């Protein structure tokens, strides 16, 4: 359980610094089981900050989304830092971005929160369907205490957690400037059970499955935009000359997009599951990401978002990398 008062104090202190532009954290959403990103520009804004198991967003996407409009004459660029509230998984995104030099370390203030698991909004909405306006969710060891219409129910975490939390190896932020509360211990281990199970299917079964998934895609690019690591200035699907992926929405172009999206996150995806959460069509994108994560762990003994000093996976090599597939 995170002490929200401590969080607010830290945010207040951070935003009071001259060298901080704003702090991004969470506030209560507008309905039901929603939390939403919020921004503090002045100390008073910190009052609305919360942290609960409903805070599923990865806020590290925001420093990467900052538009840099062309400066007017005599205007100085705003080089102040951005404060970000992060959970364990989110912090790995920052580490990964730092590793790729997408962001400079001294441009962010990282407010870390140890997290023992969040709630999958889809799962909880399925469990409590209907006209819910305000709810309260609290973290109680191995259960979530969900209060709806004044009635509290305790639900085992496994029933409501997204997949990523069930096998989370990094409940504590990997990198932070300030930590709220104390680090927590966790014995969870990523075992790639689902990936392994899927691998056992035949080629035809696999393609039949993915064909159906990719056909659903409407190419809104919510997966890309919600992803903190998809921060290319110009995404390859927006490129016109040459145009690799056509704008038409059909199986071929959708497959190309989804495969390339997954590939472009190889060795970079830190498993925060934002893509899958944001997808309005419910495409299980993490199944692709997790497969790559597993393979690079096996082939290259590499894990993304752990060390900012390491070189990016696909920008380095070892002479004895696996090459049994080469003729």
């Amino acid at each position, binding site marked *: 359980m995170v002490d929200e008062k401590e969080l607010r104090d830290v945010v207040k202190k951070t935003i009071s610094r001259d060298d901080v532009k704003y702090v991004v954290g969470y506030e209560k959403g507008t309905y*039901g089981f929603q939390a939403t990103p919020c921004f503090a520009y002045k100390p008073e804004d910190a009052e609305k900050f919360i942290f609960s198991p409903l805070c599923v*967003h990865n806020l590290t996407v925001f420093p990467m989304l900052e538009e840099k*409009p062309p400066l007017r004459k005599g205007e100085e660029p705003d080089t102040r830092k951005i404060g970000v509230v992060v959970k364990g998984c989110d912090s790995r995104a920052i580490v990964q971005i730092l590793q790729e030099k997408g962001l400079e370390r001294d441009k962010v203030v990282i407010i870390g929160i140890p997290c023992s698991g969040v709630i999958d909004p889809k799962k909880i909405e399925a469990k409590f369907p*209907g006209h819910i306006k305000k709810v309260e969710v609290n973290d109680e060891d191995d259960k979530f205490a969900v209060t709806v219409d004044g009635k509290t129910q305790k639900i085992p975490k496994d029933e409501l957690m997204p997949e990523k939390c069930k096998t989370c190896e990094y409940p504590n932020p990997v990198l932070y400037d300030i930590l709220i509360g104390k680090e927590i211990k966790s014995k969870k281990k990523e075992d790639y059970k689902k990936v392994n199970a899927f691998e056992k299917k035949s080629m035809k079964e696999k393609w039949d499955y993915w064909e159906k998934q990719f056909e659903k895609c409407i190419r*809104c690019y*919510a997966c*890309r935009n*919600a992803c903190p690591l998809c921060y290319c200035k110009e995404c390859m699907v927006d490129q016109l000359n040459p145009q690799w992926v056509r704008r038409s929405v*059909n199986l071929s172009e959708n497959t190309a997009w989804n495969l390339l999206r997954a590939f472009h996150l190889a060795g970079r995806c830190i498993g925060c599951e934002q893509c899958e959460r944001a997808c309005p069509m419910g495409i299980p994108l993490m199944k692709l990401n997790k497969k790559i994560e597993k393979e690079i762990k096996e082939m290259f003994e590499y894990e993304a978002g752990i060390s900012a000093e390491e070189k990016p996976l696909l920008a380095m090599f070892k002479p004895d990398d696996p090459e049994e597939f080469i003729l």
Partner: protein
Amino acid sequence: MDKMILLKDDLSKFITELLKKNKVFAPIQSDDTILFDQITRPSEMNLDFCKSEIPPKNLLFHQTETLFKFTPGTKAKIESVDVDEKKVIFGIRPCDAKSIAILDHAFKGDYEDPYFLSRRDNTALVGLSCNKPEINCFCTSFDDSPASSKYVDILLTDIGDKYYVEMNNEKGKQLTEGMSNLFKHAKESDAKKKKEVEKKAVDMISRHQKTNGIVEKLDKIFENPFWKEVAFKCVGCGTCTYLCPTCHCFDIQDESTLTKGARVRVWDTCMNPEYTLQASGYNPRPARTNRVKNRIYHKYNYYPKNFDVIACVGCGRCIDLCPVNIDIIDVVTRAGEVKA
């Protein structure tokens, strides 16, 4: 306007009759989502839903549409394409049907869009009243009801063991020609029952948007910092616009090889910076603030100014699926309260 009754047991007969002369599109279950798609048998339908994941606008305004085919080069040729034949959209919700009436304005005008309008002429809308609105439904904020028959050709309302059927116009009557054995005239009690069902549904709608005077209010707060606050959490994806039943922006692209090609139009979203980016590098809407503001203004200010109707039907899809909880009910209501 004829009021009839269709027994629930006769529904599949009705659909079978429709299928004889038309392509029928109806809600079907696909994984955990409901989508409108073509059916060949009544049993493929699933009518136990609130709203489809993608609004049925995509049946009239295709996400990908071939405008014409061509041969490039010095011996260039252009070949028109035909738009498909008669169809029935069965089970369309009153809110989605209203959105199609709203889209009519955009596609009509000085230049008529032949693709949308031909389809529109050839499509009959058989509506189904919504009897279990969800948390983010707010159609009542636009003086409409989940059982409104205004925008469909025929409206069915589930009143227990039968459907209350409102034949709205000639198109609806023509559609049911020769099926008189299926329909019986409704009694006073059936009409009363429909009213009750409607009231129950209306009462279930718990969220409301304040749209009084919003058009004029937005005129006054274009430069207000409020928009920055609203838009800052936007990640810039196209979910809200692609899933909006009234959004109609598109992009036109040529797809071709050296010898053959087609000009294709695809949905586009004003949330994408490339949407307005000019070749010179200048972008009139450079930041997310500009883009989110444009979305709201287009619906609540520009559209009413041009066509006298707010381009929102209150289906709530953009709220349901926004990854960062940008809530149009909340945004517009608060915009109304902002100090100008």
